[in-house]
């Protein structure tokens, strides 16, 4: 990575106008995955002086600034008590502690990394992304948004649904990328299932969810839902895991997860 200028933005407006001065300008969050690219930048724009590092506990939702680090997020009592703690749990699976002291919630989501544990953990909840210039989009919509989004991610809000959640990251060693992510929640009497790192970015298993919505949830329905989930999403091989094994794992953990949240 080569960088000509490093700039601390004084306001979101300032950051936004700087960003659009050149297509070689970019926002830097934690900057961890950025390091691995061979990109050349004119100006990296740092948002850390804009107060985007707070977690606010509001009546119906929790609002998390984009510059909140993964470590601050997982450690926050508000997040830990939110939705049976599953979001904190998902974030804690990312690399080591030092890494999580640097990586941010905003960077983890905005990059839409296919291996993201953060996205996999949040996607089964009611999560909205807030941008500058002012715009709001659900996490699910953002993941399917075509092309690079033009605005700056400033906050995310997580609805307090009193959800019950389950999160499983399958990995070889503790510092490994996920071989597969399985997340499940039950909120407002509806079951949500998502699979990430198949190796594609996490996605909801809408057909399986629909099936569970329409049928009494017993052992048979759980088995059936796990089958449907694996049929509706795409899986493929990676260097260290086959498509077939991914599917076998997904079925087992969907069944286990559903039983846990019921």
């Amino acid at each position, binding site marked *: 990575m080569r960088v000509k200028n490093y700039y601390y933005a004084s306001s979101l407006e300032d950051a936004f106008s700087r960003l659009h001065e050149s297509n070689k300008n970019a926002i830097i969050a934690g900057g961890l995955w950025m390091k691995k690219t061979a990109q050349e930048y004119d100006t990296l724009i740092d948002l850390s002086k804009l107060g985007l590092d707070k977690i606010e506990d509001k009546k119906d939702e929790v609002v998390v600034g984009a510059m909140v680090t993964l470590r601050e997020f997982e450690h926050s009592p508000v997040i830990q008590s939110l939705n049976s703690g599953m979001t904190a749990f998902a974030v804690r699976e990312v690399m080591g502690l030092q890494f999580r002291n640097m990586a941010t919630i905003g960077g983890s989501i905005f990059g839409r990394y296919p291996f993201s544990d953060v996205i996999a953990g949040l996607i089964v909840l009611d999560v909205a992304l807030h941008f500058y210039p002012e715009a709001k989009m659900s996490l699910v919509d953002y993941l399917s948004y075509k092309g690079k989004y033009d605005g700056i991610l400033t906050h995310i809000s997580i609805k307090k649904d009193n959800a019950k959640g389950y999160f499983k990251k*399958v990995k*070889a*060693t503790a*510092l490994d*990328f996920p071989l597969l992510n399985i997340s499940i929640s039950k909120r407002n009497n509806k079951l949500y299932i998502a699979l990430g790192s198949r190796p594609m970015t996490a996605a909801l298993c809408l057909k399986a969810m629909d099936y569970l919505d329409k049928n009494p949830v017993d052992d048979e329905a759980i088995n059936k839902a796990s089958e449907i989930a694996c049929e509706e999403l795409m899986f493929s091989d990676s*260097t*260290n*895991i086959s498509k077939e*094994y991914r599917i076998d794992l997904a079925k087992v*953990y969907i069944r286990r997860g559903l039983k846990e949240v019921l």
Partner: protein
Amino acid sequence: MRKNLKVVNNKTHSLDGEALMMGRKSYSDDYAEPNSLVCKMLRSPHAFARIKNIDTSKAEALNGVKCVLTYKNVPHVAMSRAGQGDPAPSPMDKFILDEYVRFVGDEVACVAAINERIAEEALKLIEVEYEVYKPVLDFEKAYENETVIHPEDGIKQAFEMGFDPKKNVAASYDMEVGNVEKVLKECDVVIEHTVKTQAQAHGMLEPHVSNARLDEHNRLVIYTSTQTPFHVRRIMSRTLGLPLNKIRIIKPRVGGGFGGKQQFHCEFFVALVTLKTGLPAKMQYTRQEVFASSYTRHPMKISMKIGASKDGRIKAIDCHTLSDTGAYGEHALTVFMIVGSKVLPLYNKVDAVRFGGRVLYTNKVPAGAYRGYGAIQGNYGLETAIDKLAEALHMDPIELRLKNSMKEKETSPIFEIMGEGTKGTAMIMESCKLDYCIKRGAELIDWYKKYPVKDMGNNKVRSVGMAIAMQGSGIPFMDMGAATIKLNDDGTYMLTVGATDIGQGSDTVMAQIVAEELMTTVDKITIYSSDTDLTPFDVGAYASSTTYVSGNAAWKTAIKMRERLIKEAAKVLEAHTYDVEFDGVKFTTKDKEITLKDLAHRLTYVKDMQQISVTESYFGHVSPPPFMSAYAEVEFDKETYEFKVIEYVAVVDCGTTINPMLARGQVEGGLVQGLGMAAYEDVLYNSNGKMLSDSFLYYHLPTTKEVNKITVEFADSYEETGPFGAKSVGEIGIDTPPAVIANAVYNAFGVRITSLPITPEKIMKAVKEKNK
């Protein structure tokens, strides 16, 4: 065990631990001259190609670039980078830089510039035109392949080792005791078993790093992270045509080696840049280079055939092995031979044993020395085959091993036949507590309560697996180490050794041995090691030789120093030497005494002034093997086959442990590295031969979370030929995990996983296949 040991076999803190924890300037790169040129390497993008044209003019014209090395302007001398003795038992098939590149990541050109950024920019300006050839990536297809990886002239072997480059053979070897075919025919039960082992990366935390400068007399002084400073000096002297005494190699603290730093990395390049420019130069591999441009463990295919009588007597072992040495033949022959020589003698009561096969070149990252050195591959083959044999015989695997394994005072004909690339050395096992190790390990893991498997409910089962292992202690009649002890004028000692501390703690161990013999404490011994100008010779840290070979040298020197001191004291006390008693502090006769301190002062300043200094050397006449048993309890998920090792038990006979805590650290660290090879680590390539797992993000070292309980015990054992009864302990810990985990998988699910690493996916596939 020798009684009343005060320092040896007692708790002694590591001598360098505090400085390292406090972050003192310690490692090679910390000693680079502040204004050093930074060297960077242009590396081949092709698995096999010839450089048709290379144009460095633009790079050389870049402001700040001081030097560009290509095969056209460096010495063209065939050599081996293996870092072994002389003559080296590895083919001399490497040039510093060559017109051929033989793996993705092989060296093309080296740039030296005033800073890293300019060096990197300059790499991009080098124009190379390649003639690209079809690579050989599968070692099973390498023999007599139409692609010849080493077609060049001038490469050679120092002695006959089956080197046949036109057939892609780096080395080959065959031996037979008795008539294996005939004995197998007479056996009641014969099993066959073939396993494949993967490449493994050393993963030492300090990358390969060296730096050079010319001293005021224009001598070349190099700090380098190496396991073999004296071999580096010799090989460099010959290859560069520079007199040996014009080169000084200094090894400061080393951040881990595991065999990876026995070979050359940056040394030639910083040397050449400094010689050409007159300026100091430094080079540090990136982590990607450490993975993809250094060395790995040799991948192998090992086929075992074992025959036994129905009462469980193992009568014949036939082992055929193919080994993949990658693009260059560092350690090709010797690692290969250890698959036989340090594995097969475990079952020494056979009527016939055969070992043989080939080591083949491929267009992959070269293989080289790596802790275990063939023994871990062979152990996986043999010890899973023994479990298979036990099953065929309906015998308990522990009973089968106890019945057939090596016992004290026994021998194996293999010792005499197979050595380090040459003939071996006959030896009787004067110390072998393998029986005890096997029995004690079974107790510690509570084998008979847990064998073969228990259902734990909640989709979990727990099974147990076991294996036994042996290694060696240096290479007899080949590895030499030396030590010098000098008396200081206050009665403290200066100990200099060639022995190479690479983090295993050999400085501490050497100081303990000397302190024990001189009846003093470690704080009275100042140790300085591995500086070719200042310390005596030592082959270096490899082949499990340091404690045994270098330790014996230190011990011998200390004994001589004691005798010398008593002689000097006797003169002062006007007595016969046999009337003088020395307790480490003072010399006494019936009526007189003088303290060591006073004696040292007197000899320096007062009367009969002289420097008391003693040097002794040692080379082994035997290589007494350490032995061990290993047991693991492993918990599996019945549906996903994910597993974790609940407990790993190792009972080790390494003779006297000079430093029990450091010895335990060697075993524990070896076990976890072996567990990495057994379960997590895999060097992966794409179909063009580019390494994919060239980062800690994609190559998985075990973390603290993969490690649960490890129990290590040492057998009460005393090796007469070792220093204070010690044998080696550096390598043996790594040997067993692949076999132990594989055997535990079998005991859990009835399937044998015959390739490494053993992943949950492989187990699931095997179980599905079995249930078909």
